[in-house]
């Protein structure tokens, strides 16, 4: 008989060949976990190739899930359980397993061919040479048992039967963590509803995995994680790109402006297009353009016509959009440019995460070309960041850059979703002709925003364009004094946004102390966890995390001045830190990791302790 043990915190990594369905397995376990009210964070990590050569090291696809009855801020540094569907998956991920951790291996993935493809030396099999003795290894021949479970199903060939292998593993883990199979069975019903044989086979294998745990008693212990003590309310599971799309839709509803998304597919931003294209009943117009430039310029055309123009991309795509971003600055019309960052430069690391487009966002255009920048920091915060980007764009008549990255775009977490009634309204007013008054397209209101005069409005016929504008009239002007006036006006308009955003707060720790860890974007979870741990140890460490990067919140300089040291951890070679140093003349230092994956809590905690407290 197995016993049940209550545990607080678990990190599981599902790893296999990119064709093994590990992403789906991970997502299913995630949804199952979320529905129990357990807090979680996920980190899918997959190769850029759709199907990299089977069985090889570059072909390994992973999905890491951290769940806990405590609050979870990161997908976890090291895992408790590693599922390895083949030898390559074991080799790539073994260094992320805690000492004494569990390894669930599919022995079929460790035959001579797989061992060779994973670059193990001739005759070496890690399952047999004692190299895994410090771990608890659970071996099962998943392929064989899956085929066995489906031996009565004559309609499917061996290849098709083997596709259900991941369901066996999932079923086994459901047994191990005391879960119900219901959420996955209903998912399968929806996915394969019309193909009954496939549906029944998948359910059969899922149950076989569960029963395998029950009958073989490989573990004498089963585990249970209790509900997390989250704030009371209703929750759902959400991924970053999905939250970002929802944020745009919510902003469209709250402004009354229909969305027009002009975009070109690019990893890891394409899921925003996929999501938005499904919501036509909200009046969402999606346009898959011929290239990145057409994506943004079509969005500019739509904004000019009174829509909420949006373009989504990643770093290389934003590089292509640069000239058009300058046009939007000159036209002074609303536009949201979403950059879901990935490893660069050039094509770089398409499926890996990085924060290396901040300088590009801040400075990367010809001429004096300022535009506000907003950054999301967790999957669910993509909703709020998108909403804010739209609000600023529309209310201040300016293009706005919204930065996300691959880590939060594909990551998931529980989200206490808002109610429409509690969302603010976004103020939109289209200009109208006034009798006996000539229309001045570049006159400004108290925010320094110019009027939004859309085609079709009688009496407002006017011309705009990329040439320098004469102040107020908007006519073409090459006048020297006017150019300086306009450059300063465009800057002042962006600076004025600081009057309409919240002041910077301290996320954790005291308002004054020895070290302030200042972050932005997806490093949030790691910094938060490290800061809490350091505070627990009694160190005077605080954490502040920026959502508004241009302009900065008005109190940021004063906030920084309260600390002896400012540390800026970033997944780049030091970008925010340079801006902070130049803006505030503070002795800020960077902690930089540029490996295509997130900063871990452990390494950051150790760095702070060594650098400032030893």
């Amino acid at each position, binding site marked *: 008989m197995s016993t049940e043990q209550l545990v607080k915190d678990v990190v599981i990594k599902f790893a296999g060949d990119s064709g093994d369905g590990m992403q789906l397995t991970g997502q299913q376990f995630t949804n199952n976990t979320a529905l*129990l009210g357990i807090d979680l964070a996920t980190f899918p990590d997959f190769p850029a190739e759709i199907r990299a050569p089977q069985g090889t090291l570059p072909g390994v696809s992973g999905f890491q899930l951290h769940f806990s009855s405590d609050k979870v801020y990161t997908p976890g540094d090291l895992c408790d359980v590693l599922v390895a569907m083949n030898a390559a998956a074991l080799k790539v991920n073994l260094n992320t397993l805690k000492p004494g951790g569990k390894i669930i291996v599919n022995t079929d993935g460790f035959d001579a061919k797989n061992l060779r493809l994973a670059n193990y030396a001739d005759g070496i099999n890690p399952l047999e040479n004692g190299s895994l003795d410090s771990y608890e290894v659970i071996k099962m021949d998943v392929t064989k048992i899956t085929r066995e479970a489906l031996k009565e199903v004559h309609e499917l060939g061996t290849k098709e039967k083997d596709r259900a292998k991941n369901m066996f593993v999932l079923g086994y883990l459901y047994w191990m963590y005391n879960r119900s199979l219901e959420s996955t069975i209903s998912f399968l019903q929806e996915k394969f509803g019309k193909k009954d044989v496939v549906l029944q086979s998948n359910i059969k294998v899922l149950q076989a995995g569960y029963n395998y745990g029950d009958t073989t008693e490989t573990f004498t212990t089963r585990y249970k994680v209790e509900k997390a003590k989250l704030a*009371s309310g*209703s929750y*759902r599971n959400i991924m970053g790109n999905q939250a970002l799309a929802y944020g745009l839709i919510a902003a469209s509803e709250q402004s009354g402006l229909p969305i027009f998304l002009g975009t070109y597919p690019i990893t890891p931003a394409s899921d925003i297009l996929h999501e938005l294209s499904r919501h036509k009943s909200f009046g969402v117009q999606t346009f898959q353009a*011929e290239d990145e*430039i057409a994506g943004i*310029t079509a969005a500019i055309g739509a904004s000019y016509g009174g829509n909420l123009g949006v373009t989504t991309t990643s770093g290389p795509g934003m590089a292509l959009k640069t000239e058009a971003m300058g046009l939007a600055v000159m036209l002074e019309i609303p536009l949201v440019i979403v950059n879901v960052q990935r490893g660069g430069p050039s094509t770089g690391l398409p499926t890996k995460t990085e924060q290396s487009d901040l300088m590009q966002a801040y400075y990367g255009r010809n001429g004096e070309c300022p535009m506000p920048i907003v950054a999301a920091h967790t999957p669910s915060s993509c909703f709020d960041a998108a909403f804010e980007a739209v609000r600023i764009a529309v209310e201040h008549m300016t293009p706005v850059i919204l930065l996300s990255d691959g880590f939060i775009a594909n990551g998931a977490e529980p989200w206490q979703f808002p109610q429409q009634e509690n969302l603010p309204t976004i103020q939109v007013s289209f200009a109208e002709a006034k009798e006996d008054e000539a229309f001045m397209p570049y006159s400004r209101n108290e925010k320094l925003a110019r009027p939004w005069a859309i085609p079709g409005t009688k009496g*407002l016929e006017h011309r705009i*364009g990329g040439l320098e504008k004469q102040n107020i009239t908007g006519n073409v002007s090459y006048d020297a004094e006017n150019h300086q006036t306009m450059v300063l006006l465009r800057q002042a308009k962006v600076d004025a946004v600081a009057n309409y955003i919240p002041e910077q707060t301290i996320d954790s720790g005291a308002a004054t102390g020895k070290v302030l860890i200042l972050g932005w974007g997806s490093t949030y979870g790691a910094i938060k966890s490290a800061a809490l741990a350091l505070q627990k140890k009694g160190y005077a460490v605080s954490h502040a995390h920026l959502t508004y990067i241009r302009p900065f919140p008005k109190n940021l300089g004063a906030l920084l001045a309260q600390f002896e040291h400012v540390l800026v951890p970033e997944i780049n070679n030091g970008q925010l830190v340079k801006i902070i140093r130049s803006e505030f003349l503070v002795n800020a230092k960077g902690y930089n990791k540029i490996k295509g994956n997130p900063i871990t809590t452990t390494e950051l905690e150790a760095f702070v302790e060594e650098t400032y407290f030893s």
Partner: protein
Amino acid sequence: MSAENIVAPVLTAKDFATDQEVRWCPGCGDYSILAQVQKVMPTIGVPKENIAIISGIGCSSRFPYYMNTFGMHSIHGRATAVASGLKATRPELSVWIVTGDGDSLSIGGNHTIHLLRRNFDVNILVFNNQIYGLTKGQYSPTSEEQKITKSTPVGSIDHPFNPLALALGADASFIARSMDRDPKHLQAMLSRSHQHKGSSFLEIYQNCNIFNDGAFEIFTEKSTKPEEALFLEQGKPLVFGANQQKGIKLDGLRPVVVELGDTYNLDDLWIHDETDFYKAQTLVRLFDNPSELNHFPRPFGVFFAKARACYEDMLQLQIQEAIATKGKGDLNKLLRGREVWTID
């Protein structure tokens, strides 16, 4: 006052002029095109405020500043893409794209072909002067081979585009050619472009008197025009010549020039049918260099016009259908999703 007593004021060409000083070189063909567009606009039955003129970069792209409508002088090559976004979301507007041979066929070539295949209901006026004027005289993608320019001191080795063949290859639903120096013809072609539902690609031969003077002289001068220019008319035979004494006949799939008289009469000639895609394919290929022996005359007029579905209509239809079947989007339902748990 009853509604029928309100008479919309009749606009004239003057109402479409702006207070901005026109800055093209004196003698530029653009002046004539501007004058013809200003003459045609009051006749098309669209309120001034519902007209938007979008341009790219180049001499021709200054056009919007001189038209008292809505207008945007955008960036190089992208007018077609800006116009796509505007038309997609505001189908009721009359959208005109003003562009040049460099803007639409070189830096913006990609957007041009994609706009045509999507068939947005817009009018594309390509001012073709076969030279780069604003950058002071480099060869363009329509310049002839061997052309001596500032960037090709020993002659261009670039093979030029045949703009109408390119447009037809991209499945343009309307293609036509006109010239700056034939105001009546140009006005007619502008009206036709407007009337066509779908992307209208109108190539306008435009003289750059500074950097490429006389490029189209052979088609525009009284002495040579009758022999060199062939004016297409729907349902009429292809006839040209000072005394209308020549015609084009189809010999199988091959066009041949014939003298009308004892051997051939009008009944033998190719009858122009602008809805015939196969004939249009041959017609756009009548693109000989006029200095070649036995060359064909250059056709002007509407080569091809055939309606097909427009992108903006289908885009808006999908939205209407989604709302009709699912109901208007409910934000709370969307945010809530399907699987929710509650913490007390």
